[in-house]
């Protein structure tokens, strides 16, 4: 029996030992993450506020830095697809799955809507938390903290501005959301009210931001002001031209005039008060002979990383090159396989060519004649679209923006240059001898117009197609010039300062100033401004927004039930026809976007825009 007791004792000891071993790893159920920052360690210092702001910048960037896809909604750029990677926001997921054709796109931006609200939440997070810091902040750090709030509010304003310009009335969320229930049954806020909130954001930003950004990539006063002007310009446009698809919106002429005036005033300040200049002072720069590209006009370099940080770039979203995972994919989107295997998702349409005026006359030249190069003499016939000479003496921005047959660019493979690559439509990757020199032609499967973009394509190797470090502009001074001209023209007709600004833009293309008949009246000057917007802002994503706010779709594509318009190529083949026999509904659905139906299924309070009911 004694033996048994001993055994029981020892087994208890063993059991005790076990439990002791277990309690030795007391924290077994409390494992700390190793690469994510615990939220409780944050929001302690001013630096934290900066880091949060930088996080907001990087979250809002992907909502705007591929705006060039939106150019496909206009008539001069074809966006046949995108390089955006699904489920990767930094690689363009916001734009992924969108439809960038001139028609039929309005129901393809649910994802973009979703990510825009992502931007709203990201900026709210900064605004709310820095505001809390502000309550207890020392006077010395107030200014910086307020500037941080200002930048976040600028970003938030830009996001809401984009939302209303596509969907009209949208739900307004102005604070951090802690639970889904807070927004599960949210309703749309009238556009006017959202607009006022955006105005408040831009105004706060204007007041609190520094005159000049401390570092390239952060916003300063001109950005806030330019966006406030642009918001008012759009508001004025909607009030003047109407937005019938948005049934809750009642246009008002007086509202329009006031907004044009407000816009003009803001733009005027941007232009005059901050000493901003066009890139390289708006000089046209040098241009090489047809078929050569050693020297390119200044306008070309404006869209290369050389222009990063230039005063013309009022608001940009920055990108990093190799190894930062923050590269842009402009080259991948605009050029062909001969450039690091790029995919030419975005190409100029044939119809842009005739928009480039003569440097000699300052006016439009005789339209090109599309010809099949197999036809005898097609390469030499005057005005033939496949005769390089037809492109002589044109607006410098033509050579900077597009390439036609026999125009060359720097080929690149594996980060090494492969020499000059001549572009010849439909003669891809073929050996060719030009002036006794052997080349291999440009290779793409992307264009169907006869042209590819030079704009946004780097002319040096060393960076992959997803490693671009160009700071993509969402507001540049040239745009402000043209918007100023538009706003003032809308109120009072052509003004001398506005004409001068438009001529400054034209000078960049080495074009003579506008003819008197171009400034003879409101309409003529509007046409001149529109012409400059088309050429100057080609591929920057503005055209679709302009056409909608001007209600110009019918003007461009023809009335409902008409034949619509063909897009063709330099060889004369029809490519696509848009708005053929289209009903009014088709136009309406191009003027306003569809509220995501998936959300409406969940939330009956969320109303739909009429054309999408």
């Amino acid at each position, binding site marked *: 029996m004694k033996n048994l007791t001993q055994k029981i004792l020892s087994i208890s000891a063993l059991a005790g030992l076990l439990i002791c071993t277990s309690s030795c790893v007391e924290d077994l159920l409390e494992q700390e*993450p*190793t690469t994510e920052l615990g939220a409780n360690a944050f929001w302690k210092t001013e630096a934290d506020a900066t*880091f949060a702001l*930088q996080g907001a910048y990087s979250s809002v960037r992907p909502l705007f830095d591929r705006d060039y896809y939106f150019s496909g909604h206009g008539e001069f750029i074809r966006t046949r697809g995108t390089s955006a990677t699904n489920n990767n926001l930094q690689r363009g997921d916001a734009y992924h799955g969108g439809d960038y054709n001139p028609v039929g796109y309005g129901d393809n931006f649910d994802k973009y809507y979703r990510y825009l*609200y*992502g931007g709203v939440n990201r900026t709210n997070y900064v605004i709310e938390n820095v505001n809390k810091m502000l309550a207890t902040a020392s006077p010395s750090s107030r200014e910086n903290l307020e500037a941080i709030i200002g930048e976040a509010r600028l970003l938030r304003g830009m996001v809401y501005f984009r939302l209303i310009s596509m969907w009209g009335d949208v739900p307004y969320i102005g604070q951090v959301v802690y639970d*889904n229930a807070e927004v599960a049954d949210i309703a749309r806020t009238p556009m006017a009210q959202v607009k006022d909130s955006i105005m408040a954001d831009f105004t706060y930003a204007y007041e609190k931001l520094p005159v000049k950004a401390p570092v390239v*990539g952060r916003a300063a006063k001109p950005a806030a002001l330019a966006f406030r002007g642009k918001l008012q310009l759009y508001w004025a446009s909607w009030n003047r031209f109407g937005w019938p698809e948005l049934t809750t919106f009642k246009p008002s002429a007086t509202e329009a005039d006031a907004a044009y005036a407000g816009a003009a005033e803001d733009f005027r300040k941007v232009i005059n008060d901050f000493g901003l200049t066009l890139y390289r002072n708006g000089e046209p720069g040098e241009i090489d002979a047809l078929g050569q590209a050693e020297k390119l006009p200044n306008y070309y370099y404006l869209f290369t990383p050389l222009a990063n940080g230039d005063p013309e770039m009022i608001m940009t979203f920055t990108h990093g090159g190799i190894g930062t995972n923050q590269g842009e994919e402009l080259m991948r989107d605009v050029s062909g396989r001969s450039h690091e295997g790029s995919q030419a998702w975005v190409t100029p349409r044939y119809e842009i060519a005739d928009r480039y005026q003569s440097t000699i006359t300052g006016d439009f030249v005789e339209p090109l004649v599309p010809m099949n190069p197999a036809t005898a003499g097609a390469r030499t016939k005057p005005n033939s679209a496949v005769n390089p000479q037809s492109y002589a003496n044109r607006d410098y921005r033509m050579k900077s923006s597009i390439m036609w047959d026999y125009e060359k660019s720097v080929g690149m493979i594996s980060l090494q240059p492969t020499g000059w690559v001549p572009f010849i439509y439909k003669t891809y990757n073929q050996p060719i001898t030009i002036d006794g020199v052997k080349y291999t032609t440009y290779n793409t499967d992307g264009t169907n117009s006869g042209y590819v973009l030079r704009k946004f394509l780097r002319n040096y190797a060393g960076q992959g197609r997803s490693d671009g*470090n160009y700071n993509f502009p969402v507001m540049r001074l040239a745009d402000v010039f043209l918007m100023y001209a538009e706003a003032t023209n809308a109120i009072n007709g052509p003004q001398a300062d506005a004409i001068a600004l438009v001529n400054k833009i034209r000078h960049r293309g080495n074009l003579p100033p506008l003819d008197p008949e171009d400034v003879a009246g409101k309409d003529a000057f509007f046409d001149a401004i529109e012409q400059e917007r088309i050429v100057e802002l080609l591929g920057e994503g503005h055209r679709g927004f302009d056409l909608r706010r001007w209600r110009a779709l019918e003007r461009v594509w023809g009335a409902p039930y008409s034949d619509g318009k063909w897009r063709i190529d330099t060889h004369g083949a029809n490519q696509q026809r848009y708005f053929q026999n289209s009903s009014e509904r088709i136009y309406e659905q191009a003027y306003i976007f569809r509220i995501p139906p998936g959300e409406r299924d969940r939330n009956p309070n969320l109303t739909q825009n009429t054309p999408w009911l």
Partner: protein
Amino acid sequence: MTRYAMIGVFFQCLFVGLLTAATLKAQEKSIENIYLSADLRNVGLEDAFVKIVEMTDLNFQYDQKLVASKKLNQNFRNESLGQVLRAISRETGLSFRRINETIYVAQSAGKKEMVSELVIPTKTLLPVQLAARENQGLPVPFRARTISEQTENKFQLLAIAVSGKVTGEDGVGIPGVSIVEKGTTNGTNTDVEGQFQINVTNQSSVLVFSGIGYLTQEVEVGARTTLDVSMKTDIKSLEEVVVVGYGTQKKVNMTGAVSAVNIDEKITSRALTNVSSGLSGLVPGLAVTQGTGMAGRNNASLIIRGLGTVNNASPLVVVDGMPDVDINRLNMNDIESISVLKDATSASVYGSRAANGVILITTKSGRGQEKATINYTGSYAVTTPTRAYDFMADYPRALTIHQRAAAVNNLRSNYFFKDGTIDQWMALGMIDPLRYPNTDWWDIIMRNGAIQNHNLSASGGGDKSNFFISVGMMDEKGLQINNDYSRYNARFNYDYKIRPNINTGVKFQGNWSNFSYALEDGFTDDNGSNTAGFDMQYAIAGITPYDPVTGYYGGVMAYNEDPQAYNPYTLYINNLTRRNRQEANTMMYLDWSPIKGLTARVDYGLNYYNQFSWNANMPNRSYNFQTNSFGSRVYVGDNAGVSNATNTGYKTLLNGRLSYNTTIAQNHEINVLGVYSEEFWSDRYQFTSRNDRLHPTLREVDAALTDIQSTGGNSSTEGLRSFIGRLNYTAFDKYLFEANFRVDGSSKFLPGSQYGFFPSVATGWRFTEESFLQPYTSRWLTNGKIRASYGALGNNSGVGRYQQQETLAASNYMLGGSIVKGFVNEKMVNRDLSWETTTVFNLGLDLGFLNNRLTTEIDFYDRLTTGMNRPSDMSIHLTGAYDAPRRNIGNLRNRGIEGNFTWRDTYGELKYIVSLNASYNATKLEKWNEFLGKGWVFLNMPYHFLYTYEDAGIAQTWEDIFNATPQGASPGDILRKDLNGDGRITGEDRKAYPGIQRDRPTTLFALNTNFSWRGFDVGILFQGATGRKDYWLNIYNNINIGNQRYASGWGQWNNPWSVENRDGAWPRLNGSGNREESTFWLDDLSYVRLKNVQLGYAVPKVLLRKIGLSNVRIFASSENLATFTKFRGLDPEKDGNRSDAYPLNKSYSLGLNIGI
């Protein structure tokens, strides 16, 4: 040694052990525990026996000739009977073998002292049929007789001498079989060779042959003097033991739903590359799905009893007590048995880990193998695809398909491909294959695969220790070129008895593997970041794979062909990922039984792994052999670098357990178990890459320039703490009760929600043990048991390790040209998130008919998973910023029935087993707390049910178009039906089918047969499934082909509808709405597959013994020999991406097994 015999020996040891501690009847005491004093000086041997019989209640059986005239001369004082017999043995040269009450006396071979014993307690000894016989007044072997009877019989005249040999079914003699003349105590037993000799009273005497593990036979002597008897294995007479969580249980006493698979040569002889694939068709309710034949990735996915959760629904794999071992890295030959725990009560000791069932694997040991053995098994298999794509290696023809497609919407002058190009290629293709190739890609990139398996093992054991060591090698060459996988396994299992009541042991398993492949799925890669993942559809015939003369890889050459057309050969040669992985898994234990029935045990396990992957692609560009220049496609740039990724980590396990078993009042067996367990995981990842290798032949990071490089790395840990309890109670061997619980705490959840409690109860009734039923059932029903269980299990697999913690994510930005820190808040944590719970009700019926020749097990179950742990539904106004917090959202129910029917019998020398198992499972989503849109998930429907458009065939005429609902169709297009009649074809026109699932079958069945005759054996395994339908739409049967670079197959040539081919099986090329998921493309994925056929021959042992071998078997085997299905695609068993082109393997193998 058959497995029954092995278990028998094991039991024998076990019971001998038990005897020492209990007060038992003398017949059940060991001779070492029976003490006596006797003066045997100058006593005749036979008289000595009488004295012993008087003192011990045992009796002797002997041939009088042996004992006559032998005298003893010793005095024993309080010696054990064992000692006494040994002394007598030494003195007389006789051997003694005690079997229960009887001590058999024989001439000792070689004059050595020989005393042995075999004691089987009455309870075990008398299985059902014997007990029944006793009731009928028949004598029973081994039963104690009174001594008076003994002496009476001893002097009876024994007239006829009968001799013979007792053999097993394999023809080998069985030692130790008891032979008793019926109605007497006259008997003997067989010697080591199985020979026996006995004298019986007359010709009508009946001899009763009985032996452990064999059916008792009665043979009338008749006129014969030699009598050869073949003993049949008694399937259930031995109490089969099944491995369960933290222990073993007798199969008859089990209340849970557990299926056990013994890994025998029938399985190890198959040309299998992993364990999971080998389970196909063996276990009812276990769905084994082979998704691909890719070497290194061809493991099967395992799902027990339907999709239990929409989170990870894979079962837990426990190997020798260690959870989370990769079943596919085990060596099949090391495995002793696999138990599949399907219901709550059997699995609930694994609580939170076991919601989807548990697969328990036990590896071999040398326990009870007195004679050490060495075993070699090797096989070599050739593999071919079960089915492959029908590629059209005719480029000009493919170009005309492009023309036909282009004709739909283009003017002839706008066709990409000109007639001249096609004509030229047609003509020159016949004489200049380098410049005008018609490459048969599938021929180039595929090969006959091969699987080699070699295993060498040794095992042995004694009273104190036993060991099992093995090394194995598996080498697989995939069907795709350069897709190779080889795995090496080593194992060492060792147990040692430190004291009679203290055991310790260690199990060590090491494995390492080398793996090389081009794309993640072989021919495709469905990861969105790989934009070339489905380029196989662009592998046009007009590309020369490789020219050995110039060393160039071909690219496109035809005028206007897309320069991005694909040369898969260069990818599979130059862009390989290589991965090697090492694992070391160790487990050690110490157990101690300080008092009878009480055992304390500590287990500690450590699993370590290290995985290294590297890429060093070889630079190459596409070459145009017509122009002798490089094309624009750069397959691998000259700046090709090198990238490395290392995954490493470990898992530890500490278990402490106490178990107590006792029997109260003879008929009440109680087992209690308590376990405390801690598990800890730690994983770490590192990645490095650099561009610009210094030379293509170099392949490590240091051999590259440093200008462009990238790195990454992270680590994560997880802890789990558990308390486990189990109570088993068995009354009168017929009323069974079991209760379990497990409490789990996981570091994945926040404090307050960390712990989950998962209890279960079960009960069983062996009704055939009831005496009031036996009169009715005993004739035909050998064994019958009803069991029921109910309980809860948990799951936390859906939750990330740190998902519940409030953390900020890095989101960096560029300022002033430099990268700067940025943080964003992506989390909205649901602080109440906790375990997902699965409750399982199981009702089972086990029956054994006709002396267990027919056994059936039928189970009905109802599994309800509640609080499915899912990302909650979030407003679109938040999802752009926040990851939806997980919430316990939905309920999913699986109801099903499964059955297993086995018939075993012999017919003459033919022994056969026919086993049929089948299972049906219906999944139903019962509750979802949040919005569910229209799709393939909805309430009261299976998860991923069929929701489809219905087609009305291909429109033949414009009249058909006119008569149909407008849908933009033209003749040649598929017409869809307007089911809701609203005059439009919209998503509303789809129809839901509650009984049909898209992802997995509802019904599985398998037929497993084995025949053996003399040394030959044949095994045939059929396996099939039904209840799944899916669309046959992939990149290879596309009819809306692009205007360039489509790699057409013969399908595109023969099948598309056209005015000339109105009966075409496919709609027209480049029509409208023809790739919608309608019933037109819907296929029934039911199939029946001849999974395995095997033929073996065991060389007779008589021959082998002469050359010193104990076992030689040669075998031939074939996997997936035939498949019967209506599915038009690659394979009905495949799941996942429909364009995954890696076929399943069909294999033919030959092998050899040698035992020494």
